């Protein structure tokens, strides 16, 4: 079964309910990414396995031998790449194919596109969905429930001076001119850092902000790596969607507050965010919600 948007307590309840219904389960394998979520599972033989370990021979063959019909596999927040044919996903499918008991937890139903939902369906039943594109009907074909985690974008305007616009244009031209053989994606990333610098004047001492790095040297501006739950105002949007999703997962906010200039780079990130948000809403609209 696939459960979307649950917090720790809700996940624990789902596992407890499942175990109560299926007395044949003796072993539980929990696949996690980087840091395990400790569940309370007394009386069961529980093993936590880090996502990057599951492709290793020392785990692969042992797990293939150990996982049977008496095993519950918990796939805990493991949509880590948009590539459906990723080797780690493939290894996970081998384990998941060996037991009917699986619970797939994910905070958001997609990384970026609706197609990403197929990664979760592949966890549920690889044979059935292999090679298929996303269709809304699939949401009704499996045991899927979601808690809607819509995130609204609240724009906090920061005034942009003529000099800043001039500086932006100059930097942009310079980046294009000196791009050489470098990755073109460094252009928006650098321009966003510059736009972020222009937002310094709007930083208030009693609020906490998140930026791409620690360049502001202020105690109330932290980087994405340091984020824990709580409310933050975003200075630089993370350019990797997965990292931005991780930020939203950790903070569990329903409103993303974003310092915004009138520069095209901010318009671009706002539009990207809105597209993502629209994709999310479309899925929530067609899915079974709690």
């Amino acid at each position: 079964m696939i459960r979307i948007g649950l917090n720790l307590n809700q996940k624990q309840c789902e596992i407890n309910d499942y175990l109560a219904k299926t007395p044949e389960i003796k072993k539980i394998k929990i696949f996690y990414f980087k840091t395990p979520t400790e569940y309370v599972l007394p009386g069961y033989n529980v093993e936590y396995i880090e996502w990057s370990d599951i492709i290793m021979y020392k785990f692969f063959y042992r797990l293939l031998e150990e996982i049977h019909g008496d095993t519950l596999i918990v796939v805990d927040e493991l949509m880590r790449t948009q590539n459906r044919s990723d080797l780690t996903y493939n290894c996970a499918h081998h384990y998941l194919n060996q037991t009917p008991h699986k619970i797939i937890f994910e905070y958001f139903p997609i990384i970026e596109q609706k197609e990403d939902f197929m990664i979760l369906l592949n966890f549920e039943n690889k044979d059935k969905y292999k090679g298929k594109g996303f269709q809304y009907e699939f949401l009704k074909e499996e045991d899927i429930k979601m808690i809607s985690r819509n995130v609204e974008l609240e724009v906090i305007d920061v005034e942009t001076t003529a000099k800043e616009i001039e500086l932006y244009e100059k930097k942009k031209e310079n980046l294009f001119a000196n791009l050489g053989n470098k990755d073109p994606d460094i252009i928006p990333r650098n321009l966003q850092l510059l736009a972020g610098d222009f937002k310094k004047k709007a930083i208030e001492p009693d609020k906490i902000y998140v930026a791409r790095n620690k360049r502001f040297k202020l105690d109330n501006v932290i980087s994405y790596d340091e984020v824990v739950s709580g409310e933050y105002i975003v200075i630089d949007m993370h350019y990797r969607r997965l990292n931005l999703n991780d930020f939203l997962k950790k903070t569990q906010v329903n409103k993303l507050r974003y310092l915004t200039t009138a520069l095209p780079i901010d318009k671009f990130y706002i539009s990207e965010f809105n597209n993502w948000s629209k994709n999310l809403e479309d899925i929530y609209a067609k899915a079974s919600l709690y």
Partner: protein
Amino acid sequence: MLKQVYIDKDVLTATKERISMIFDDYENIVVSISGGKDSTVLAHLALTEANKRNRRIGIFFLDEEVVYDSTVKRVEYMMNLFPDNTIPLWFQIEFHLTNATSLIESQLICWEAGKHKIWMRPKKPFAIQHKPWPKEKETVRDKNKGFGFYDALENFQNSRYNTAFLIGLRATESPNRWRAVSKNPGHKDWYWTTKMKNNNIAAYPLYDWNFHDVWRYIYDNQLRYNKIYDYMWKKGMHLQEIRVSSLIHEKAFKALVELPEFEPKTYDRLLRRINGISIGHIYGKDNKAMRARKLPKNFKSWLEYRDFLLKTYPDESKKWIFEKRFAKQLNNNYVARQQCRQLILNDYENNLPIDNRPDPREEKIKKWRELL
């Protein structure tokens, strides 16, 4: 689009049935082996059936000379596993092999006459040392290259009649192999076979096996397998990198990087045998050299680098092949990078085909120009 469907039968049972059907319908059976894990399993299954039926089958190995010592040991092992049921077809004949590591010695002539002092090892007394087909009937695919590996295979197969050639290809290895093993049936409704000349067929009884099925069979039957797999695994190599092949052609030269560590004696003999080996060892996985992933800093673009490589290409007799091919392709950095790789690896045969399309990087730059 072909689709994999699970049925209520395991691959081993299905393969045993396929092999049994081949034995029923074909008098002559030849299993091709390479010393790798798949052909080891296939040969073992076929020899077990031959033993059961008290029949003899050919075990065919086309010896490329420049192979791992562990491969030679595994081939010897297979040929001696069921000696009463084996017709050893160990071919040690002269043929050309591309050498991707050297621009001055772009081809190795395996088992070249007159060079026996530097051969990787002496020929086997029981080996087939001369081409067993009539000279006038011999076919060559590419006259520029000369008589190559696939010509040797083809001529051997065409010299036989009413024979089933068993090959250990598996569909999951790559889309190309998927296609190769599941085309039109070569005999009856056996979709896992393909038709060949002289009423021969190529059969792929392991076509639906996955790599862990192969390892499971080796484990269950306590078969010996190529030591190179263990070395590669210990080295922490990626699952898809763990494979045994030749050592010098354009898709295999990367093996030279680890060769001195795995088999120092083989490396030592190879150094004496042919040019370019130490280059392959040092630069085989280097992004700026043989992988052609990063542009060397002396050049501003892949186009400039490509022009330089073409201008300084040392073998005038092959240069025109590249010039003619590149003239038909797009002139952008994306294509030029691939052309550089062909030039560096001396791939005049076009074994590493070029994805000839507009540069995705330029498209991206255009997009950022419009948006920012």
